[in-house]
């Protein structure tokens, strides 16, 4: 019989001690166990990027992370991007640039964009396009998303 594993992890700045089945993906853990449904399930194969979250500041596909892998790690999901009711500058910029159409790729896009801006406060268009090249969007043609990231006010960028 499969043994469950106890892990401790920080998700959106809150500590959790969780008992997980090892075949549970981080995506399933977030959505089904923790109710954090902002992270989206699109392909479960690392081929769409809708489930992108930050693990220790790095953008990863949560569908390809096993729950035990986050033991001792720090996770940030879309639910942790805003500071309470105060939206992150990237979120404001997405709203201003109409970078959100159906919205299903949006949480993953925002996480990829955040990981870029955290290491590079004023990226070029090519850098932005590269950073979101692992996030498929079928609605926007990417242009308004690229503009939203490029025009996120540097002074307001926070890590």
């Amino acid at each position, binding site marked *: 019989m499969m043994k469950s594993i106890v892990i401790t992890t920080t998700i959106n700045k809150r500590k959790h001690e969780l008992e997980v089945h090892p075949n549970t993906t981080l995506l399933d853990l977030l959505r089904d166990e923790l109710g954090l449904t902002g992270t989206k399930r699109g392909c479960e*194969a690392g081929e769409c990027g809708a489930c992108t979250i930050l693990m220790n500041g790095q953008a990863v596909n949560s569908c390809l992370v096993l729950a035990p892998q986050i033991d001792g790690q720090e996770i940030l999901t879309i639910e942790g991007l805003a500071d309470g009711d105060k939206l992150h500058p990237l979120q404001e910029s997405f709203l201003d640039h109409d970078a959100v159409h159906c919205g299903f790729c949006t949480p993953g896009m925002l996480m990829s964009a955040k990981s870029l801006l955290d290491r590079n406060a004023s990226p070029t268009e090519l850098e932005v396009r590269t950073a979101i*090249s692992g996030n498929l969007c079928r609605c926007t*043609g990417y242009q308004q998303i690229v503009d939203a990231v490029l025009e996120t006010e540097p002074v307001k960028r926070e890590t």
Partner: protein
Amino acid sequence: MVGKHKIIGKPERRVDAWGKVTGKAKYAEDYTVGHQLWGKVLRSKYPHAKILSIDTSKASELLGVEAVLTAREIPGSNVFGIVVKNQQILADERVRFLGDGVALVAAKSKEIADHALALIDVQYELLPVVSDPEEALRPGAPLIHGDTNEFVHHKVRKGDVAKGFAEADFTIERKFKTQFVEHAYIEPEAVLAEPAEQGGVKITGSVQNLFSSRRSVAEALGISLNRVQIIQSTLGGSFGGKDEVMTSMCCRAALLAGRTGKPVKMVNTREESMLESYKRHPYVLYYKWGAKKDGTITAMEIRVVADGGAYASMSPFVTWRSVVQATGPYYCENVKTDVYAAYTNNNYTGAMRGFGSPQVDFAIESMMDELAEAVGVTPLEIRMKNGFEGGAVTATGQKLAHTVSLKEVLSKAAQELGFEEKWRRYRDAKAVAKRRGVGLACSYRGVSLGAEGVDAAQTTVSVQTDGSVIVSSGVTDMGQGAQTQMAQITAEVLGISVDRIQFLNTNTSGVADSGPTVASRGTVMGGLAAKNAAEKVRATLLEVGSELTGTPVDALDLADNYLVNERTNERLASFGELTAACFNKGRPMIGLGWHKAPRTSWHEEEGKGDAYFTFVYGANAAEVEVDTETGRVNVIDFVSVHDVGKAINRAMVTGQMCGGVAMGLGYGLLEEFEIEAGIPKQLNFDEYLIPTSMDVPRIKTVIVENEDPAGPFGAKSVGEPTNELAAPAIVNAIYNATGKRVYEIPANLERVFLGHKLTRHDKRGSEQKNAFDAVMVESCKVRGGSE
């Protein structure tokens, strides 16, 4: 209303975007209730087979399984279909494509449901597979339904083509082919069905066209329409794709919920989604044009065969748009167009953004460039010579009474890219390895359903005592922004800011049947219904305001969230005070808006009619770089110009244009859903490639506005026309660069390199091939079904 618009035309933030950037928006899979069961579908093992027996006993006995259903256990009707009722919720005697469902399981967990599926024993007898639409129309082909595979034949007749060809100085005859295309909405299908009172059911799901799905659920359960409530969750993209595939999912979940008395959730994996969902039709197009030396087109004879796949779906409507628009926006006195659809054992094909136009536009616009070359003029010149102007009579005999802006959009697209100069320069350039080229494409497109459908929609506006407003509509939002444009229209009419409006997700029990949100009808139909509703509320509010202030109604206006005296600009009451007064006086707080589309007509036998009440015009110009040693095409510049009548929200119109071009670029260069002997090859995004941020260039968008009285504030449509021109513009640009024309899309490496698919001589004899097909079929235990 007097003066300029305050809300219309402004880039307002979307009313539904806050939830989407915070992760709080609820999509179908995000709905969970206590004690819900997981529903799963056992799908067919073969593309075409007789079902001999289904043994569900082992699955039923599995611990945690609460129901196993087959076609026999369906209390009501097992068949559905918007035009032709020949699709089954569960196959009873025969499976016709690999995505057909055979049995259902509801269990306490996904794992148990998966396990139960593996325990269902289905015995099949294999039937011959037909996977090619032209083969399917030949005598002796395996039959999919009834006694013929031909289920659509639309025609258009004008003048006399024989006479037209006799008058011609030359003819151009070409064959074109297009591919299956997956919608590739990033959100896979999902529903939650909950049993409701009196044998009813409440369904929350990613449903595009709620009313047709509701009808099928009611018929499947054998209950009346008012007992079935379908609520649309936030939709993660649809592009025409969440129609029948959602109808069957709704029916299945409802059947399981009815059987178990418990909520049932069903979610497709990506593999299940790609396996079962319908696609954009592949077309084979035979175009023959006769023309004079000066470029005048004297005759067009067009024959098109569409692969309808296993079921009728929207094919009759999709192909009807094709037949109406098959000649493009060009004058021609003699036209004979025939469009056929054939059943095959492939995925069925239905509505997808463009709805029958991307295929014919690829052919028309390629032909137009060939005509230009034959005549010795530029692609722009040939289009300016033959393109429609105001009052033109179309191939179907319709006189265009609106502003015909074809030449305006064409010139703007050409000018923005520097088309004429570049086209000449690239044509005459030296034959180096990497070559540039530019291409042009344009179209006209009928707005809304046209003459084949009943076309009416409802939107309701209700004001609250605090001055906030609720809007709901039968026209649905799937990401294109329908809610926002209806909210802007409502805000404009009521003189309030958009943030006062809360838009309710569409609920079949809350609004009247408004037909499907397809065919570029969202803005016009939903928008005019919203305008109609808001105007009723406005009239009431102004009356109340007049009673309240003693100012005559015609001196009153609603602006900036206030009731104002239009003559003195004095603010007489806040909008909230006004709505409170309306309530206290017992006056109606709600406006029910209804819009029925203007009259259209169609004579199927004569192939003539006033097909659509108005049209939109668009032009795209592409610049590419082609590596002639590899066939690799990079799109380096792109201009998209569309006359949208009036942009309700400029940012959203721009977004539609960019998104449409990106999808069109995928159509022209990249995407192909391959089906081999009835078996799809790509079931996830590692194999079915859609454009990434690195594939789409920066797109220059030009919005042209010739207001049309047929739409709200002059607005028409933008979602679909933006998707139909990128492929031909790119293919024409490839020709300009290389001198080689691609007749089959996608224009992938080998087609661009050689102009055709590079294949080695097929050594296998037909006997061997049949043996291979049989092995393929034998081994096609498809992933989605066994998980």
